[in-house]
């Protein structure tokens, strides 16, 4: 069985396409077998909704009279990056106000940051824009303070350098104190474990060799339509064969873009992690075209075949040690208990499985109703073994004036 992107898009236009969510595809393959399921189904949809720190948005605010070249900008008191043309700026999801108490009283609350500003903009709330310039002959103005909404400004584009990590470590804490991490609050002595992917619904886990994902892939992003524009930062897909015969896929990421003005506040939500920081929860869904049986095989692997490594966030992760405490399946994680070092540990997710399911269903609906055509990549992302291994940052003696 072979199928082309063009054939699938023709079927979408004619209203004849067959789309299943990854959950439904798993059930169908179990019931009817791989061959028949692959023959029947054209597209499998996936979804994930969770905190994605490498996210942000860029804007063009429009020119004021007289003009200003924005040298520094703040949106609701959160600094943006203005090192572009006069009234362009970027705002990162984890950026915090300069007067945030941070972790000075540990654990800090981080109640408002860049992710919250993006959410407020998408929710059509007015946002205070403040900018200063140094004054030039062409841009004489030195300060502006105004209120903007998403509809007032020329462009607002969500641009996330890394989203939808293919897989993620399960976090535990072997130390004797409670720790506050981006993986949530971890109780001492292996008191709990957290994990953060949607497992069998997770986009890049369902096409682990990245045979259908690349530059130009059209996706569900923040409730609107987005595109994969590049491999995400730290993209380094790998396959590890586990002692029990299981396969651990991890390391794939995507950089994505989309029109913020067409997104929805339900799918871009500012988040505050106690003791860690602020960020943005992003909803992202990827359609997988069933070009052949092999793609259907991978798209239909269930939670019991998908593995994640268990990492100690008390000692190993902060110190950069590569020790893995064990491997568990998403089925075990979802059951509520995993066993590590002979100890039973209660688990909890951090990314929302109900929201992931909702995204996969929404994408299915968009495609079935002819509103969303598949975007055939102009170039696929590098697959397993096609990227150099990730390098660490070396500390070297700096130049003498390096501290300037």
């Amino acid at each position: 069985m072979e199928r082309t992107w063009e054939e699938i898009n023709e079927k979408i236009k004619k209203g004849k396409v067959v789309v299943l969510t990854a959950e439904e595809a798993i059930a169908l393959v179990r019931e009817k077998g791989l061959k028949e399921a692959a023959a029947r189904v054209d597209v499998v949809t996936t979804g994930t909704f969770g905190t994605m720190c490498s996210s942000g948005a860029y804007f063009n605010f429009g020119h004021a009279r007289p003009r200003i070249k924005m040298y520094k900008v703040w949106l609701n008191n959160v600094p943006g990056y203005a090192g572009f043309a006069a009234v362009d700026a970027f705002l990162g999801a984890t950026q915090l106000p300069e007067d945030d108490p941070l972790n000075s009283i540990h654990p800090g609350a981080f109640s408002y940051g860049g992710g919250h500003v993006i959410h407020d903009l998408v929710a059509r709330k007015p946002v205070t824009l403040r900018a200063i310039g140094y004054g030039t002959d062409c841009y004489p103005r030195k300060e502006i303070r105004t209120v903007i909404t998403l509809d007032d400004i020329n462009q607002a584009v969500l641009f996330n350098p890394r989203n939808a990590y293919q897989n993620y470590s399960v976090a535990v804490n072997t130390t004797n104190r409670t720790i506050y991490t981006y993986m949530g609050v971890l109780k001492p002595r292996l008191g709990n474990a957290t994990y953060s992917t949607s497992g069998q619904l997770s986009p890049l886990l369902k096409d682990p060799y990245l045979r259908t994902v690349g530059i130009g892939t059209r996706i569900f992003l923040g409730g609107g339509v987005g595109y994969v524009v590049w491999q995400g930062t730290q993209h380094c897909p790998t396959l590890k064969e586990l002692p029990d015969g299981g396969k651990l896929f991890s390391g794939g990421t995507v950089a994505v873009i989309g029109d913020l003005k067409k997104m929805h506040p339900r799918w871009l939500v500012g988040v505050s992690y106690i003791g860690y920081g602020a960020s943005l929860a992003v909803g992202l869904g990827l359609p997988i075209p069933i070009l052949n049986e092999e793609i259907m095989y991978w798209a239909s692997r269930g939670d019991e075949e998908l593995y994640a490594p268990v990492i100690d966030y008390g000692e190993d992760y902060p110190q950069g040690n590569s020790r893995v405490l064990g491997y568990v399946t998403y089925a075990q994680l979802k059951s509520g208990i995993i066993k590590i070092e002979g100890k039973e540990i209660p688990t909890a997710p951090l990314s929302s499985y109900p929201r992931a399911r909702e995204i996969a269903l929404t994408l299915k609906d968009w495609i079935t109703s002819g509103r969303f055509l598949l975007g055939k990549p102009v170039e696929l992302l590098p697959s397993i073994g096609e990227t150099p291994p990730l390098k660490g940052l070396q500390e070297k003696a700096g130049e003498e004036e390096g501290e300037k």
Partner: protein
Amino acid sequence: MILQRVILRFPAQVVDRPIIYNLIKKYDLVVNILKANINIQKEGTMVLEIQGDPTQYARGLEYLQSLGVSIQPLSQAVFRDEEACTHCGACIGVCPTGALYLERPSMEVKFDENRCVACLICVKVCPYKAMGVVAASNSLAPVD
């Protein structure tokens, strides 16, 4: 005169009845609405500060109960904002009583107010600020 804060939970059938109006009009109570919410199942939750004559206050509560409204003193007033909760699960591991728990296989996070001891841990931990609390005041507090 007494001053009391209570949480009311309304079944869907009575959400559209003029209950607050009646409390004020028929029982001569001073009612201050601190928080009000109607969920997707059309059930309502409301936090009220009620001030008035103790007899009238008691009669007012009887009236509410006759409509099927449940009344709870505010010492247990931890709320979940159903709109804001994304069912992420970040609160599950830290809730000491299991009042916040995962329902399987839907993987939805449920909040059982009856098991909540208002320790407020979830209020600090929830990344989406979906857990809220209103200042507690214990049983009937006389004023003046």
